[in-house]
């Protein structure tokens, strides 16, 4: 496919690796923020091909992984309310909540449906006027414009049986939290290309200056990642700390202005708790007062929720890069993609699932370092 295959060319990948070896004089530690990039890096074994001393830490950019337990438990409580249809992206269904998951609830008779786009949930509400349709609106800046449009469209259609359970997260505050964490080893970032396609990269400029870290807006194919790594390492070797754009074919400095306007209209910035990481100030989106009528939290009173993580899961350390899945005792034994104990083992963007699908084993832990 155009714009995919040509960025997977092994010959050009070899060139990039040779150039990277040529410019690297010291060890450097970079973080790729986005789970989609983690997936490419682990699946292609890019981290194992890099010159010695260049280490990739996998970042918190897996939307499925960081959606708070409280939101999942609330979605499950809403799904069990008679007369409701709970809709969600497919990879949310197997994420373990405190007691069960949405897939298991569906098997027990709850009406839980997978949608490809939030607009499908709006259509479902229009076609089922006697049911309440709720969309679990999670994700980063990449899904926020779609979810904003679903709310705007439901308002235009005058729907009173559509609502959204919003738990959006924002990437730049999470990167700042990583940089502020005691013992932070990250010296440069690959910023998430598609987040920047929506938001642009101006937010990163003060961050690069304050923390003196290079930030390279990077795409998702193997050549994109190798070039992003090369650009970040060049900056580090030259003592620069700027925002650069590797992914120029898809990202402009100001992002997508129409999408940003819709986000600003429907959502406001709020503090948000990230699963496994904790509360990060100003790191999420919630509905503005103008659209409060579409807030599923207000529409459904599910009482008090008591949340509980699986005691063996170290997802918090995985999401902040403090540990790799190979450091988790449950990895590959009690916890597999078929029987996930924690969220990072569920979606393709989760680090634990990426490792497992690539066949990485705990026994190989030291060999891969």
């Amino acid at each position: 496919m155009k714009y995919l295959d040509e960025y997977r060319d092994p010959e050009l990948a070899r060139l990039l690796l040779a150039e990277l070896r040529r410019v690297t004089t010291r060890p450097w530690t970079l973080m790729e923020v986005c789970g989609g990039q983690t997936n490419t890096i682990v699946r292609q074994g890019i981290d194992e091909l890099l010159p010695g001393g260049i280490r990739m830490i996998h970042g918190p950019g897996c939307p499925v992984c960081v959606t708070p337990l409280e939101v999942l438990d609330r979605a499950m409580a809403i799904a069990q309310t008679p007369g409701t249809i709970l809709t969600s992206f497919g990879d949310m269904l197997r994420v373990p909540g405190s007691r069960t998951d949405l897939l298991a609830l569906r098997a027990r008779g709850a009406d839980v449906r997978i949608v490809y786009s939030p607009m499908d949930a709006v259509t479902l509400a229009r076609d089922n006027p006697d049911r309440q349709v709720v969309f679990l609106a999670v994700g980063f800046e990449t899904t926020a414009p779609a979810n904003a449009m679903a709310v705007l469209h439901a308002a235009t259609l005058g729907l009173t049986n559509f609502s959204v359970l919003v738990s959006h997260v924002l990437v730049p505050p999470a990167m700042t939290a990583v940089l502020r964490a005691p013992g932070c080893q990250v010296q440069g970032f690959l910023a998430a290309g598609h987040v920047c396609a929506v938001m642009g990269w101006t937010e990163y400029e003060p961050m690069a200056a304050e923390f003196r870290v290079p930030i390279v807006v990077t795409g998702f194919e193997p050549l994109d990642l190798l070039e992003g790594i090369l650009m970040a390492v060049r900056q580090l070797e030259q003592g620069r700390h700027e925002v650069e754009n590797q992914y120029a074919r898809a990202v402009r400095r100001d992002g997508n202005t129409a999408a940003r306007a819709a986000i600003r209209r429907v959502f406001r910035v709020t503090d948000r708790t990230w699963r496994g990481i904790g509360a990060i100030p100003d790191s999420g989106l919630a509905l503005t007062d103008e659209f409060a009528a579409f807030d599923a939290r207000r529409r459904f009173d599910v009482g008090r929720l008591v949340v509980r993580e699986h005691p063996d899961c170290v997802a918090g350390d995985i999401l902040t890069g403090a540990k790799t899945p190979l450091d988790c005792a449950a990895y590959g034994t009690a916890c597999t993609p078929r029987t996930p104990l924690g969220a990072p083992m569920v979606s393709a963007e989760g680090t634990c699932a990426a490792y497992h699908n690539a066949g990485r084993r705990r026994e190989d832990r030291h060999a891969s370092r």
Partner: protein
Amino acid sequence: MCLGIPGLVTEVEQEDGLRVGTVDFGGVRKRVCLAYAPEASAGDYVIVHVGFAISVVDAAEAQRTLAVLRAMGDVLDQELGP
């Protein structure tokens, strides 16, 4: 959910007051909302996330990136010798 992929816009129309299109992903066709890609028309490539085009692929920039990478080969050849 968060994996955006490029696809070719084959048709553009209006539906319920929204700009929508048909996008071809290597043979798989999907309906995609084009509200955030007002400049996209048939023949353009767009990056699609959860049923929405969030960016129009800039063909000239795409070529430039590949050209830079290929040119690196020549430099390396000189640098590293045969």
